[in-house]
């Protein structure tokens, strides 16, 4: 199986605090990799290091063989890596469709064509398709601020997919979403994975969500990788149980 991403010996230090300590793993094509761990275990920091938001103190990231450590997030995005954030980040003043066009526009054409070309950068069709896929059709022309939290979460995920990425990193996609929306979200993500062959890495606290969605799981605690494997095995790993239940 092809490796989409290789993360090697990532370390991130803030002054005296080591937030991420020598973490290494592979992301295999087509899988849904979950990263779990108690609060403060360094999951989001790890993401930020991989995605260029932070410079890792040490370590490297390779995307299909190409070194991408420390690249700016926009450059990484153009290489096919997308993400969502823990704190919801859609653009409240733009409509649903405009949010999606925005998410895709930098992957079409050049600066010049974006200046002189059509208003929607030719993406209205693609945006509509995405809207249908995520079942937001009745909200196409609503301003994003008018959507419910769960709907905004769906929009957020949809934006991450607009560029047809090879790899999507989702940071706590289930956070704050009610049960019905959760079903919908999990269902759409699974569909993206099987239909479009998108590879995911998901940070999540919601155990049920993670166990049902992910094919493989990594467990982080205090910045270190303490367990790796399929959901059932990891669940029973004594180190994992100890990390969650505390010392």
């Amino acid at each position: 199986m092809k490796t989409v991403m290789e993360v090697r010996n990532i370390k991130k230090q803030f002054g005296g605090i080591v937030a991420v300590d020598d973490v290494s793993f592979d992301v295999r094509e087509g899988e849904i990799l979950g990263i779990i761990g108690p609060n403060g275990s360094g999951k989001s920091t790890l993401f930020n290091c991989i995605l260029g938001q932070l410079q890792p103190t040490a370590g490297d990231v390779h995307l299909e063989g190409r070194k991408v450590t420390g690249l700016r997030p926009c450059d990484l995005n153009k290489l096919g890596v997308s993400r969502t954030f823990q704190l919801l980040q859609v653009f409240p003043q733009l409509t649903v469709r405009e949010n999606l066009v925005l998410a895709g526009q930098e992957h079409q054409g050049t600066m010049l064509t974006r200046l002189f070309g059509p208003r929607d950068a030719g993406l209205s069709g693609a945006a509509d398709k995405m809207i249908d896929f995520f079942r937001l059709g009745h909200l196409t022309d609503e301003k994003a601020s008018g959507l419910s939290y769960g709907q905004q979460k769906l929009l957020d995920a949809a934006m991450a997919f607009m560029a047809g990425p090879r790899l999507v990193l989702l940071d706590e996609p289930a956070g704050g979403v009610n049960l019905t929306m959760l079903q919908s979200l999990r269902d759409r993500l699974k569909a993206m994975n099987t239909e479009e062959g998108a590879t995911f890495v998901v940070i999540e606290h919601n155990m049920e969500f993670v166990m049902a969605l992910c094919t493989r799981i990594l467990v982080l605690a205090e910045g270190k990788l303490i367990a790796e494997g399929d959901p059932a095995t990891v669940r029973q790993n004594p180190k994992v149980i100890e990390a969650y239940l505390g010392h």
Partner: protein
Amino acid sequence: MADFVQLFISGLATGGIYALTAVGFTLLWQTSQTINFAQGEFVMLPAFFVLIAMGYFGMPFWLALAVAMIVTVIALGVAFKKVIIDPMITHGVLPIVIATIGISIFMKEAVREFYGADAWPFPPLAAATNITIFGAGIAVQSLLVLAISVAAVVLLQIFLSTTRTGRAMQATAQNPYVARLLGVRVERMILYTFMINAALVMIASLLITPIYLAKFTNGELLGLYAFIAAIIGGFNQMRGAIAGGLILGVIDNFTAAYISTQYRLVVPLFFLIVIILFRPQGLLGRVEERTV
């Protein structure tokens, strides 16, 4: 050599005044994201309070000083914060910038209209005598100014790092959200920084006005220098403001003496640009994590 020492010392003296102004400026920025474009005028004004107290109310100098300090802390500290800054604080930096620009204009014009456009003498804190160090004639005035500015800043540092209130203020400056969680009364701490700033500008005013005379335009250049000093030193660190102020004072003095006076401003501005481009955290500042 004698000239050099003289320029250096008097440069440090003016630098001390810049440092005071820059420290207040930095404090306001750190705790409440307030960029006070009127900081220069804040230094210009208290001298006039003293002159009015002495001239119109016939108070002796020391009483006038005390009264002016109280008025300054209330007007430029408490009132400034509650009336002007508080309503705008949730709307980002810009409205405050514009409002403080307006305030600086208002203060300048008010002094010009109600007091006059001339330059008035202001009583110095020491007699105009010289002492000799390394063969150079150093004005006692310069040494006194330097000593007072340093003392003021040192006292402030001590206050901030040893007293409970001071440490609470530091916490507010670093992370208001966490400070609030820890039980720090953030609003009150911010009020204190405004009051401290008022005290600092009052001291700066006392130190600089005898040299430049009391004139309504005093604030213009001083404000700019405070800005530059704060940035060169490191906008997110008080120590930076002090270093920046002293360095700027010395550079400015040497530039005026050895390079043309026409382009006197160029050297500090040049430093500013160089620092921002090559060491944006300033000489002593902390590196801000890259977020873009």
